[in-house]
């Protein structure tokens, strides 16, 4: 099972594919911190994360996410 740190490290690749290499992923990071993180880039990100971890999120789960920490918890639960 992946540790939270390993999940965050793997998330960096997904974030980079959408926002470029300038955005550094941490558990505290949220959409408010990144100018380009609008609703459509959010979807691009979610698709990239689903692919990277081989998981699927429901509409409710996607809607409730606020920070990378919450995303990490969700991935932890789905890959457990």
């Amino acid at each position: 099972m992946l540790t939270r740190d390993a999940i965050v490290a793997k998330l960096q690749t997904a974030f980079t594919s959408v926002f470029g290499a300038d955005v550094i992923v941490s558990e505290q990071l949220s959409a408010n911190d990144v100018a380009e993180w609008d609703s459509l880039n959010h979807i691009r990100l979610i698709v990239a994360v689903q692919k990277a971890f081989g998981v699927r999120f429901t509409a409710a789960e996607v809607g409730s996410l606020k920070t990378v920490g919450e995303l990490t918890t969700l991935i932890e639960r789905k890959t457990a």
Partner: protein
Amino acid sequence: MIAEVQALLHGVWPNDTNALLALHARLRRLTNAPSASTSVVRVAVLGGYTTTLLTPLLQLFLARLGLTAELWQGDYGLVDQIALECPPALVDFNPHIVFLCVGTEHLDLDSVDREATRWQALWQHLHSRLACDVILNTFEPPHPRVCGSFDVRDRSSATAAVRRLNDTLIQQAPTYVYLHDVEGLAASWGRSRWRDNTLYDLTKLPCAFDVLPEYARSVAAVIGALRGRSKRCLILDLDNTLWGGVVGDDGIAGVRVGQGHGEGEAFARFQRYLKQLKQRGVLLALCSKNDESLVRRCFAERTEMPLAWDDFAAVAINWQPKHQNVAQLARRLSLGLDTFVFVDDNPAEREIVRQYLPLVEVVDLPADPSVFAETVAAGLWFEAASVTDEDRDRTEQYRANTERDAAEESVGDYGAFLDSLNMVATVRPVDAATAPRVTQLINKTNQFNVTTRRHPQAHVERAAADVDGVTLGVTLSDRFGDHGLISAVIGVPATTADGHPAWAIDTWVMSCRVLKRGVEQFVCGELLRQASERGIRELHGSYVPTDRNSIVATLFSELGFSQVAADPDGTTRWRLVVNADAMTRHEQQAPPITVVPSGRKETEQC
């Protein structure tokens, strides 16, 4: 630029949506700056769906076709309102094309009749207000089906209603409406793969995230067809491309094609596909390292093959390097290299063509001949805007040209050659019968096109109705065959410096099939004659250079026009005074073309 985008796309093809969107962001500079090798197309996208992820992909795939897309997006979900209102911002944008990005979610299927009336009203309104073409999707049957197979028979089911609606729209769509077949696209991908309901619920995207590029590429192909960017000619290898085995080694009886075994069936399937392409007006040409007489005998003896020798408009069967042969085929067919698609099973031959002729599209054939047809078809190179009778006869016309070239060689003296052609022309103003072909010619012709202005049919019809202007549609036939309508002119009212009436040549196009036949002198003579009859004092011409129309750079000068201006963008402006001198000079230089009254007029007189 096309080659640059092509190379960049090669790495991320086919459907890594995120990578393509990132590429678009990097290429913004490229896609926003029209260069010599591109032309601009203005597309308004009215979305019932969220179109913000689709439009960058559309722009990217249009760039690959050499089109710089300027996009205008309507507010989400306001398709009907925007189409019926045509707000000033949309009118000012002056779109060539309005794409209605809508689907089954936006229908009220309780009444198919009402839906059919709704879409007809929208396209009619858009077209009459904006003189644009309209792209409307076909609608997908809902996924999942409610009860399974019975849905198709239950007239009240959404599946049955969508089918009836599609049929009605297809039957009623006028020529300015292009039905983008999302229904067919979704079916070929599989509806469960095409749709992603979770994502739809979140975002209202038109399809699953991973197939967005396919959606965009398919719309781009339709727009490309409307703007004359479809490919015209498929260059084919022979051994292990059209049949299994090597005819030089295995012999005529030994090559595998036709019924009886899997490999033969596979190549026959590919040949049947190619035959259908040919019937749609795509030219087929052979480029093979082989012995031509052996190949001819192979086609003559293996009559079970779907393709026959006469199906090919031109052949280059010899031992020269393929890129040289392809370049030569382009010259012989008077087509640009960017209208060619090259198909060869040999990766080395593909590479040499890619290296030397980057404008040629090269198809990477897989090892399995059973999927050759779908590999070629997947490129969407041959999306058609319409099919006219000229398309169906095209191979015949090109074959006749090849024979004519042979005649030219045997005659030697060019004037005597032209005499020997027994050319017969008809000239008449553009009318309802010829407007579709004239529009097609205007939008497809890249070489003999003085201004490269593209016009929708409505514009052509308006120009034809303008009593102060002039339109000409010219047909030509000769002893080898009938070329059909091969040249068109739109002259708009203008004035001379001292206030007398003049005609400005807004558009003059001619099919390259009839180059160097004196047709341009003939058309100019006709313009002069009609101008003189109608009290027009001057003809004004302009030449707007593109990377493809250098063939007409000196046209006006050759026709006796004087240059009056040269614009910074390279456009040159020309004037010919309509007087006795000009008429006499043109009569003396008139080519040996006999004018006959057009068939239609004769019928009307009867």
